[in-house]
């Protein structure tokens, strides 16, 4: 029912297809434009926003700097409050834990809170294979799931769909999996949201087991935190008898008080609100209130690999707000699918290689999917220097090919550049050649039009100025630094 990112082409190819989809580009430009404006307004009203960013980054760094101790404390406090703590090295292990809990309670369906980590590990597909239906309950996730589609944004997975497309998906698919959409469904967002409410309510009321992620996990107290808008999260966290929460090990916050800056940063960066409608916190089991069996799965799945990278580990500070996606000029044009992962956009371009390692052509193309404009770093509430990490990961990709028996043309070109730039006399000789070419070309036109070969990547869409007949260096030497210039 859901699509898969497996086998996606490298970014430039996927981007080319996305760029050709004018409807998609229109949907994205509209949506990212709206959210940028909202974010700018609510961030602008916080006087000490930069101090908050520093504090948010410091809290996450402090948790990461002795992550082993933090996790052990988290485990202790959770266990003391009645939760069962599991550890999972990878996706398969985490999925198996969830399936085992489902089997122990003989459930054939679970309701799900929107969670990036369960998408990362492919939990829905694993549950389906085990005969358990997983119902996404966040509106955008529902749209994606019903549409047999892939998420394209961290916060708004269906950002690539407009209202008319959503109406069509609801009309066509809701009836097949539960309460159908009303026949008179319009494409008004309020009406569509109402249809989702009716469709999901029966599932909420009967579900015996829920699966969630967590935005934060407080080591000192064992408190998990889910930040949401629609109340679907509260439904899942409150009504079923059994709750399984899958928590990436980087979600730890050392103490309750240190959650404060993060709670202030996240909604303004994410939905552009002063505060999101609902934040739920729970600590193990609360007698007489909510699920009376609570499991927490602490997941690695590549996070320790990212932690071992001294430049890249800052990416583990990410609180999944998606501000970097919304301000990214590349994301705005290509959308999320081109990144071939549940983590798209600038953060995805660093997180995927950090979690998976380099070596796969699709993953290796991601650090290059950026013009390094720096808008992402500026917007990031926990100050992840994404351009710095992108450049660092590019060097890892290049280094992984240093032993190739047949080097790539690009590698040969850069070796040549290294040779030329080592000494100005070598560079000067090349410039003389360029000057000769310039004299020839400028006889025809001051610009170069379409040319074949590697230069086509430039000249297919842009003119190239013809080289000047004299380089600056030649001018300086001819005119004694301009002093003898006519």
């Amino acid at each position, binding site marked *: 029912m859901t699509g898969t990112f497996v086998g996606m082409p490298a970014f430039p190819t996927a981007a080319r297809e996305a760029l050709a989809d004018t409807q998609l580009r229109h949907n994205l430009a509209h949506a990212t434009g709206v959210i940028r404006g909202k974010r700018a307004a609510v961030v602008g009203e916080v006087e000490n926003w930069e101090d908050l960013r520093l504090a948010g980054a410091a809290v996450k760094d*402090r948790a990461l700097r002795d992550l*082993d101790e933090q996790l*052990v404390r988290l485990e202790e406090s959770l266990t003391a409050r009645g939760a069962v703590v599991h550890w999972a090295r990878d996706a398969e292990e985490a999925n198996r834990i969830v399936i085992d809990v489902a089997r122990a309670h003989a459930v054939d369906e679970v309701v799900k809170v929107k969670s990036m980590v369960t998408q990362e590990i492919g939990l829905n597909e694993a549950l389906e294979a085990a005969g358990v239906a997983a119902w996404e309950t966040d509106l955008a996730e529902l749209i994606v799931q019903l549409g047999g589609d892939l998420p394209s944004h961290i916060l708004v997975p269906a950002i690539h769909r407009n209202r008319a497309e959503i109406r069509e998906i609801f009309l066509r698919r809701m009836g097949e999996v539960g309460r159908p959409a009303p026949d008179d469904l319009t494409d008004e967002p309020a009406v569509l949201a109402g249809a989702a409410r009716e469709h999901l309510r029966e599932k909420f009321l009967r579900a015996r087991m829920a699966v969630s992620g967590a935005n934060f996990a407080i080591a000192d107290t064992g408190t998990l935190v889910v930040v949401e808008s*629609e109340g679907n999260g509260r439904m899942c966290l409150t009504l079923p008898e059994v709750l399984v929460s899958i928590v990436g090990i980087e979600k730890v916050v050392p103490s309750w*008080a240190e959650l404060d800056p993060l709670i202030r940063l996240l909604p303004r960066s994410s939905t552009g609100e002063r505060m999101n*409608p609902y934040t739920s916190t729970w600590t193990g089991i609360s007698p007489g209130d909510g699920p009376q069996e609570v499991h927490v799965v602490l997941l*690695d799945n590549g996070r320790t690999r990212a*932690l071992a990278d001294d430049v890249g580990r800052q990416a583990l500070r990410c609180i999944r707000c998606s501000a970097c996606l919304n301000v990214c000029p590349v994301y705005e044009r290509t959308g999320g699918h081109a990144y071939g992962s549940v983590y798209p956009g600038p953060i995805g371009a660093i997180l995927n290689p950090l979690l998976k390692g380099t070596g796969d052509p699709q993953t290796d193309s991601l650090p290059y999917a950026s013009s390094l404009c720096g808008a992402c770093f500026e917007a990031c509430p926990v100050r992840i220097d994404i351009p710095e990490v992108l450049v660092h990961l590019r060097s890892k990709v290049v280094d992984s090919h240093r032993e190739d028996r047949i080097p790539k043309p690009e590698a040969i070109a850069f070796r040549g550049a290294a040779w030329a730039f080592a000494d100005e006399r070598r560079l000067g000789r090349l410039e003389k050649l360029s000057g000769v070419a310039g004299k020839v070309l400028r006889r025809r036109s001051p610009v170069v039009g379409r040319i074949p070969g590697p230069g086509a990547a430039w000249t297919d869409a842009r003119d190239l100025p013809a080289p000047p007949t004299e380089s600056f260096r030649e001018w300086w030497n001819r005119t004694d630094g301009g002093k003898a210039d006519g």
Partner: protein
Amino acid sequence: MASARDEILGRIRTALRDVEPDAEPVLSPPGARVPEALGLIDHFAERVADYRATVVHCAPDGLATAVAAALPVGSRVVVPAGLPEAVLAGITHPVRDDGLTASELDLVDAVVTCARVGIAETGTIVLDHEPDQGRRAITLVPDLHVCVVRADQVVPDVPDAFPLLDPVRPLTWISGPSATSDIELDRVEGVHGPRHLYVIVVGSAPSR
């Protein structure tokens, strides 16, 4: 074979060989100041109303009347076991929550509760689900949530709320009715949680 726990902790220790821990907790930057022209309570009321919630202000002796006015005539109203008499007085036929099932709650029109903290800057009310607020489910399933906040429970900003909250209790931070921006990032109020939030602020702000 090593357990997943030992293996993950081992990988972390290897990854962090070059890193020294930070013993000192990070101090939070101060929160926003209350606009002087408005004052704390009006600032709170304005920010709650920004989310398209209804906000009214009443004196302590007008509480029952205010509660009654918040509830449409003939509403089926669930209340937590510990709801104060002064609030209860405004409800004609309260259904006291004694562990109603989710389906039973779905047949109820409204819920009336107290709160633990109000946060002015963000227009947030926080429930800690003490007996005057009840189980989490009762403020979730009904479509109208009437929440009584005492003026002396309102604080300026989020950092002022943290020390007042006990994380060991379940907490629900509520900022307006449920909402979504999932369709073209157009904000729509009213999805799964209560579609209507009605906040009654009782009394006046203590002089600070």
